[in-house]
C-alpha cells in the first residue's frame, strides 16, 4: 500500500495542485492530510474543497484550521499569521467551516499514528524537532510510525534506545529504506509554505510493501500564490517566505 502523507497546505492552491498531480503519477492508494488546510494563503475555500473531493483521503485538524473557526484564539499567533487567519475567517463558507470543524485531532491506522503537531498534547501545538519532545511523543503512543507536520520541515527521528534519538533533517527528494524494528517520527514537511530553505512543496509516500519512505519536493509557480496574496492584501512577510522557503 502506498500512502501519501502531506501537510500544511495553508491556502496555497497552486502548490497543492502540483503535489496532487505528482502523487497521481506515483500510484498512491490512499492519502492522509496532517492539518492546516488554511491560514497564510489566499485560497482557503479552494484548498478545502480540493482536499474534500479527494478519494480515500483522510484529514486531521491543524492549529490554523482550528483558529479559523475560533475554536482557539488567533491572538496568540504572530502578527502576520493572525491577520491572515482573521481574513480567512471571512472567506470560509459555512460548508467548509463545518467540514473543518469535524476534523479529528488524531488518526490511528494499523501501526501508524497521525497528528498535526504532537501526540501528547495535540492541541498544544508544540513542535517536535528536538530530543525532549521526540521522546515525549514516543512515550505518548505505542505505534511504530508517528507522522507529524506543523514545523514545515521534513524530518526523520529514529528512536535509538530509551533516552536517545537520532534526528535527521531531510533535504531535497530522498528515499529512506526502513529496516529493523526502530520506531520513527516522520515529518512530511509543508506543501504550501516550506521553511527548510527550499521553496518546493514537500510531501512523502510511505510504501508498506517496499518498506520505504519517499520524500518528494515538487516545484510550483509560487508567483500565482504571491500575486493572489498581494491582491487580497495579506501581509508581505507571508509571501516573502514563499519566495525564500523560510
Amino acid at each position, binding site marked *: 500500500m502506498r500512502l501519501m502523507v502531506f501537510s500544511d497546505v495553508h491556502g496555497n492552491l497552486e502548490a497543492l495542485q502540483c503535489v496532487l498531480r505528482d502523487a497521481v503519477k506515483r500510484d498512491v492508494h*490512499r492519502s492522509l492530510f496532517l492539518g492546516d488546510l488554511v491560514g497564510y494563503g489566499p485560497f482557503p475555500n479552494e484548498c478545502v474543497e480540493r482536499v474534500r473531493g479527494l478519494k480515500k483521503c*483522510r484529514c486531521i485538524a491543524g492549529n490554523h484550521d482550528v483558529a479559523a473557526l475560533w475554536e482557539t484564539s488567533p491572538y496568540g499567533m504572530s502578527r502576520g499569521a493572525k491577520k491572515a487567519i482573521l481574513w480567512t475567517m471571512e472567506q470560509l463558507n459555512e460548508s467548509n467551516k463545518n467540514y473543518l470543524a469535524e476534523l479529528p485531532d488524531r488518526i490511528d491506522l494499523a501501526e501508524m499514528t497521525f497528528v498535526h503537531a504532537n501526540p501528547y498534547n495535540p492541541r498544544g501545538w508544540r513542535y517536535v524537532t528536538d530530543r525532549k519532545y521526540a521522546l515525549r511523543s514516543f512515550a505518548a503512543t505505542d505505534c511504530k510510525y508517528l507522522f507529524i507536520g506543523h514545523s514545515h520541515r521534513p524530518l526523520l527521528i529514529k528512536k535509538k534506545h530509551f533516552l536517545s534519538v537520532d534526528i535527521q533533517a531531510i533535504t531535497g527528494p530522498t528515499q529512506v529504506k526502513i529496516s529493523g524494528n526502530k520506531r520513527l517520527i516522520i515529518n512530511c514537511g509543508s506543501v504550501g509554505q516550506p521553511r527548510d530553505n527550499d521553496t518546493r512543496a514537500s510531501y512523502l509516500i510511505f510504501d508498506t510493501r517496499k518498506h520505504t519512505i519517499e520524500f518528494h519536493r515538487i516545484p510550483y509557480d509560487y508567483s500565482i500564490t504571491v500575486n493572489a496574496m498581494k491582491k487580497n492584501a495579506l501581509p508581505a512577510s507571508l509571501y516573502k517566505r514563499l519566495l525564500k522557503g523560510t
Partner: protein
Amino acid sequence: MKIKRHGPRSTTNLKQRFFIWSAFILLGGGVLLSALSFWNTRRLLMAEAMTKSEVILRGAEAIRSYVKEELRPKMFERHGNDTFIIEAMSTTYISTTIMDRFAESMPDYIYRRASLNPHNPRNLADSFEEGMFDWFEIDSTRLFWQGIVKKNGASYFVSMVPDYFGSSCIRCHGKAEDAPHELTDRYGMDGGFRFKAGDLAGINSVAIPVSASFREAWQGSIYLFAITLGGSALLLWLLNVLFQRLVIERLGVMLTLISEKKKGTSKHNTSGDEIDFLQASLGSLRRYVSSARKGSALQPNFIGNYTVTEPMAAGSMSWVYKGFESTTKEKVAIKIGFAEVLRNPLYRACFEAEFHLFESFSHPCVPKVTQRVEDTLIIDDIPGGNLSFLLHSKRLDDTLLFRVFSQLCDLVATLHSAGLVHHDLRPHVLVLDDQEKIHLIDMGLTSSDQQEDPIIAAGLGPQGDMLYMAPEVIQGKRGNPGSDIYGLGFLLYLALSGSLPFSEERCSSGKWLRKKEQIIPLSNHVDNLSNSMEQIVLKAMAFDSKKRYKWVEDFWEDLKKALN
C-alpha cells in the same frame, strides 16, 4: 416412570412432570423443616442443661470453698489442731452429703466427687472419669468441661471442674501417719494419702439426664413432618388442579389450534410433552418467518409515494425490497428496518447509524439515497441478485473474479480510508448486477473510528452470522480493518471453490473459533489452483489478525498478480 430433565425425548407429559417435581420439592421441604425443628429444639435443651448443671456445680464448689476457708479454720480455732471432725471439717464429706440430700428431692441431678485415690471408696472414679483426669492433667489451664455422656443406655449432660489440693489439705491427704485418727479410723490408711499440694485431688461433676428430652424433641419433629406431609399432599392436589386449569387446558387449546393448522400431519408427537410440541411448532414458525424474510411470502405494500414489491435481501438490521415510484413507475430499492430492530432502542441506534452512513458515504458500489421516509430509505434501483450463488457454483471465471474483487477491494479500501469497518462482508449483502457491478446493500454493523461504536456501547456482543465473521469479531473485538480483510478472504475462497472453508453446522462461539483456526485447504475443492492464490486466501483468512494483510490494497495487489 421414566423422567428426563428436558428435550424432545422426554417420556412423561407436562402435568406428570410438574406433579413429580412438585412432590419432590414439597417432600424435601418437609424433611428439611423437620430436621431444622429437631436441631433447634436440641440446641435449646442443651443450652438449658448447660446453664442448670453449671449453677449446681458452682453451688457445690461454694460449699467446698466455705468449708475449706471458713468452717475448718474456725473448728481448729475452737477445738485445737489435733481435733478433726469429719462431718464438720472434710470438704468432700460435707459437699457430697449435702448434694446427696439435694438429690433426694431432685433425683434427676447427680453430683459426683470423683478421685483416683479417694478416702471413701464410693468416690473412686469410673472409666469415663479416669479419662477426664487425663484430659485435665494434660493441660492445667483446663478448668471446665461440658458435654453429652452415655451411661447405662441413657444420655446425660455433664459439667466438670477439676479440684487441686491446697497446703491445708495435705494434713489429711499427705502421709497416712500424720493424718487425724478420726479419718484413719473411718476410712483406713489405704486410700486418700500420698498427695502433695498442687496435685489434682479430684473432679467435681454434675450430670443431668437428657435422653427423655431428646426423645420428646425427636417425636415433635416426627409430628411436624407428618403435618407437613399432610399439608404438602393437600397443596400438591391444589397446585395440580390449578396447573390443569391455568396451563394444561389452555395449552391443549393452543395445541389443538396448531394441529388443525398443520393439515395432514398427526396430532402431535407423543414422544415429547406439550411444551416440546409447542417448541417444535415455534421452531417451524421461526423457519417460516425466516423464509418470509427471504421473500417467499411477503405481500405488496405502500410507503409514501412508493409501492413495495418483492423482497431482495435481508441485512443485519433491515430488509431490502424492490419497488417503484407509484406515479412515475421509476424503479427503486427500499430499505426497511426489521420491526424488532425498530422496537429495541439499542438496535435502533445501530439502524440509525446505518441510515446515516447510506446518506453520507459515497462510493460507486453504495446505492445513492433518494429519499428517507420515516424508518425507510428509498435508494437507487439495484438490479441483479446477491452473491450467494457463489455458495453453489463452481470456480468463478478469472475475468468476473477480477471485476468483482477490484470493486470489492476498492469499496473496502474506501471504507477503511474513511475510518469505517464493515464487519459483515458476506455474499448475501452484495448484489451483482447485469453489468457486473457490485452493490453493497447493508452497513448495519459498520463501526467508525471517530464515533462510539453503538454495538460495543450497548454491550450487544458479536452480531451477524458467525459463519462469515472474523475470529476476533466472534470474540467481541470490533473496529479492526483486518476483520473486513478476513471477509474478503472468505469471499475469495467461495469465488474460487464454490464451497465453504469449514462446515456450516451451527454451533457455539467457542466451537466456531476452533473451526476457524483450521480452514479446509482450497486444494481439496479445486484442481490446478496456483500456490500464490492459495497463499493469498490463507493470509487473508489467518486466524490471528496480525498475520493477515494489514491493508486491503496489499491484498488486491497480490490478487491482481495471481490473476495475471
